[in-house]
Structure formats: C-alpha cells, structure tokens
C-alpha cells in the first residue's frame, strides 16, 4: 500500500542519514584533529577557522536574504542605478574591505614562532613507510628513535624535516600545520605544545602503496618528565644474549635495525632500542603486542603492502615470538 511504501522510504532515508552522520562523526576525535588543538599554531588555526566559517555563514545568509528580497519585490520597485550601486558596494568595496581585514588578521598567525639555538631540535626523516627520529637537545648527546615523537609542553621545539626516498609530508593536526619532507632539503617547523597527552601524526603526501599506513604517535609531556625520559632513554642498553637476542642476531635483522647495547647499529630500518615503549607497531597501525609483533616480523607486507622489510615466512612461530618478546623488553 502507498502509505506503507512511503513510510518504508522515510525509514530508509533516515537510516541513510544516520549512516552518513556516523561516518562523519567518526572523523571527530581528540587525538588526531585540528579541531582538538594541543599546540600554539593549531590554536591559532582553529580560531581562524571559526572566524572564517562564521563570517562565510553570515555572508551566505545575507546573499540569500538579498535574493529573496529581490525576487519578491514588486515590479519597478527596484531601480537600475540602485542595482549598480549595490554591485559597487556589496560586490566590490565590501569584499575588498573584508579580504583586507582577513589578510591583516591571518598574516600575523602565519608568522613562524620565534626560535633560538637553545631550543630542542628534533630531526625527522620520512621513509617508505616509517619515520626516523633524532632528538638533538642543545649541549647534550642526541637520541635515535623511530615512529614516535615526544615533545615537552610549553617549550619551543624545532622540527627539522627531510626525506630520503620520495616526498612525504609531516602533519600533527593538533599541534601545527603540515610541512613537506623533501629529499635533499631540510624544512623547519617550529612548534610549541600547550597541553600534555597522547596524539597522532600522519603522512599527508602520497608516497607509495602504504602511504595511508604511515602514521606516528605523538606524546606531549610535562617538561620535567620529558627531560627525565630523554636522559633515561639515552642510557638504555639492551642485552645481546638470550634466545630472542640470538635469533635476532642469527636472522640478520641487524643488517637493517639498530639496538643500543648490542653490536647492531644499522640505519636502514627503524631503531628498535625503545621498541618496548612504543604505543604502536609498524608506524602507527597495530597494537604492539607480542602476537602482532611476531606476525609482522614473519610477513610485514601482509600488514603494510610494499614495506621495505623482507618477509621471514620460513621462520618458526616460536622463534618469531621469542624475538618479539625480546624486542618487547624481555631479557
């Protein structure tokens, strides 16, 4: 019957609407969103966005009202010279003034934060499909890390960004705008985190098969906790004996990976010294459990198509798990 069909139609439409809304809402999160800033530059960007969006809404409403008014006006009620005057004021002078004001408002926000030689530098290199991270605190030894960036809250940090293979782009939406990583060039991004927490960054320049699986964790820490962590992390040394360590050695993982305290210092793949502290596995894509780590070691491309690490399909599960447990911090 007709009314039934209509009711079903409405229900289907409602369901579609709900599905779309859910899709949109899943875009809202606190850890990777320019709408949930935790840095000075992202704060500015958010207020600029709010001003622009509200301004645009007001102008759009104004235009709709004008059209509505014009379409309802009696014949001959509107004059041609009045129309020309409207075009001059609302079409030329008003936009010019608005754009000038916006430019004067936005340009100072685009000015990079001031930095000095005394600021912490963090060099990040984009590689298919992971991030090489090097902390270079002023007047102290550097620290190598990967796939995770820690920043002290309230202090200025200078990111020095580059790439080794293709162009990548470094974006921590909650912290600052994005910056390209270009082979052979170093770009600077100056940031200042404003509140502690765990956040996420992503690669935003298509860089190959697993581009969408190239992310990283960002941890904003209180300055004292950061200093303590950095000092501690620099001292970390891993054992080079034990079943896992021996398997790591025997399988030739050390041809690509470094682990402090062992004879392995290769720089082709991510540094694994602090793997046990990582919040994710494979540059922000998997939970770093022993099971996941073992599975990743046996077949990285199953998780990241095109990953630059060979598969160890012939490796027995028990051996992969032993290596995983070793990487996770077991002696």
């Amino acid at each position, binding site marked *: 019957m007709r009314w039934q069909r209509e009711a079903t139609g409405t229900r289907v439409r409602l369901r579609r609407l709900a599905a779309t809304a859910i899709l949109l809402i899943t875009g809202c999160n606190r850890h990777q969103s320019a709408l949930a800033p935790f840095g000075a530059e992202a704060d500015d960007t958010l207020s600029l966005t709010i001003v622009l969006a509200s301004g645009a809404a007001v102008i759009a409403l104004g235009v709709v009202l004008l059209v509505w008014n014009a379409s309802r006006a009696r014949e001959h009620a509107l004059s041609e010279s009045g129309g*020309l005057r409207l075009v001059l004021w609302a079409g030329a002078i008003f936009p010019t003034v608005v754009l*000038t004001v916006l430019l004067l408002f936005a*340009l100072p926000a*685009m000015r990079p934060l001031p930095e000095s030689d005394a600021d912490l530098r963090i060099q990040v290199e984009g590689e298919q499909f992971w991030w090489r991270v090097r902390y270079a605190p002023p007047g102290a030894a550097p620290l190598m890390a990967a796939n995770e960036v820690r920043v002290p809250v309230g202090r200025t940090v200078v990111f020095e960004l580059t790439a080794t293979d293709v162009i990548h782009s470094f974006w921590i939406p909650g912290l600052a705008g994005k910056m390209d990583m270009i082979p052979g060039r170093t770009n600077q991004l100056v940031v200042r985190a404003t509140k502690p927490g765990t956040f996420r960054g992503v690669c935003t320049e298509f860089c190959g098969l697993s581009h969408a699986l190239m992310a990283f964790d960002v941890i904003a820490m209180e300055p004292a906790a950061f200093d303590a962590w950095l000092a501690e992390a620099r001292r970390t040394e891993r054992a080079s004996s034990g079943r896992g360590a021996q398997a790591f050695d025997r399988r030739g993982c050390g041809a690509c990976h470094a682990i402090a305290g062992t004879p392995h210092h290769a720089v082709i793949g991510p540094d694994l010294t602090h793997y046990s502290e990582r919040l994710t596995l494979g540059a922000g894509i998997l939970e770093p459990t022993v099971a996941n780590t073992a599975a990743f070691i046996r077949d990285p491309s199953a998780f990241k198509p095109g990953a630059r690490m060979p598969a160890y399909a012939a490796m027995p599960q028990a051996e992969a798990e032993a290596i995983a447990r070793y990487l996770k911090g077991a002696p």
Partner: protein
Amino acid sequence: MKDERPRTKERVKVTLWTLIVPPTTWAAHFLFSYLWAAISCAKVGKFATFPTLFVVGTVIALIVIAASGWIAWRQSRVPGDAPPHQDSTDVDRLRFLAVSTMLLAGLSFVAVIYTALPVVFIGNCR
C-alpha cells in the same frame, strides 16, 4: 599668444593599450616580488626591516596603476548615456574602455597591496 596645442589631459586617450597597463603592472609586480623574495632568501636568509628595493618597486607599481586609473576616470566622464556602453560609436567605445580600465586599475591596485603585505607581516624565509 594662446598655446594652440591641446593640454596633456586632452591629448592622452584611453586605448586598448591603456587598458592593459594596470593588469600588466600587477603581473610585473607579482613576478618582481617572487624574484626579490627568492633572491633575498638565497643571499641573506631573511627580509630587511625596511626592504628599500621592494618598497620602491611596490610604490612605482602603485603609481603606474593609479595614473592609468586617473586617466581612465577623466575619460569616463565624457558625456553619454548610462552603461552598458555597447553601441559602436566613438563615445561609447571611449567610455567602455575608460570604465573597464578604471575597474582593472582598482583591482590591480588592491592586488599589488595584497601581494606586498606578506613581506611586511612575515619577514621570514621559512
């Protein structure tokens, strides 16, 4: 004895050539800005507090645009009917060119200022 020659403002007439002066000046200033910024960044690494060359270039561009706008404005006041100036008469042709030049001059003037503002506000090569 009275000078027989017409005064300058009567002699200068808007033509298609006057029409393209403002946008061409804008384009030239745009290119100049990019070259100037690229060379400053490559050689010095930052912009001076008072970048003389850039200010002079911008002022010249603004003067050229304002001058063609002024000529166009004078000629747009030749008596005739209200717009659109679309008849194939000398008066309409002149007034059409004059009004178009004037609008282009306005646009180009604002555009040159917008191109110059970042140098004032950012002053940094990063």
